[in-house]
């Protein structure tokens, strides 16, 4: 099915939990610049998940109002 990929990803995002503090700059592929400056090393999936969570909460609020 075409939409299975979308549904899989959606379910994955629902189950995901990035609330636990992620190790910063510990990965093998982390650039040295980030390790040295101790910058937050947010991965693309974490960025997408953060926005996704915001949207889910916004929709819940909207439905709660209605």
């Amino acid at each position, binding site marked *: 099915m075409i939409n299975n*990929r*979308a*549904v899989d990803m959606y379910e994955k995002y629902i189950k995901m939990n990035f609330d636990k503090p992620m190790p910063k700059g510990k990965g093998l592929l982390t650039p040295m610049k980030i390790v040295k400056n101790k910058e937050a090393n947010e991965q693309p999936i974490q*960025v997408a998940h953060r926005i996704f969570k915001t949207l889910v909460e916004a929709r819940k609020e*909207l439905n709660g109002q209605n």
Partner: protein
Amino acid sequence: MDKIEPTFDAPIAGMSLTHELGARPWQSAAQYSNVDEVIQYYIEKFQIEDAEKSLLDVLEMGVPVSIIANTLQLSSVMEGVHSIDTGLLVLPVLMELIMYIGDKNKVKYDSGLKRGNTGVRSSLVARAIKEFKEEKGKEEPVKEEPVKEEPVKEEQVMVEEPKGLMARRTESGI
């Protein structure tokens, strides 16, 4: 035992090599490489009034949200806006965004999240009805009413009498 049937839905081997490398938009660098930028691109796209209206129309037609999101994402990959990877990461955000727009405008939609949904789609029902009507129309040929042939009235041919100096003389004539 079920026989494994060959699928004919796959691309032909070498189909992707019919153009020069880099000639297609998805073969060159994508326009947006960050997830942030890609999400911003889609939000801006949905903010256009016409886009939102057409999206709501599609939702009202009963097209599942997951299919809309996937189609949007794939078409953007084809246009070279973003890569497949970022597209996949953004897919749930897109779905949620579409559902938010639907809820905001109080449109009933199918999220497409239910698995094994074997219910008959309304579009299929409409197609079946249409085909049935067409077939019924073929079976029952339209009765042709016999056309009554009206006798053609013979018009009386009026023969004009020759006039003028050079005209031939007639019996009654001069």
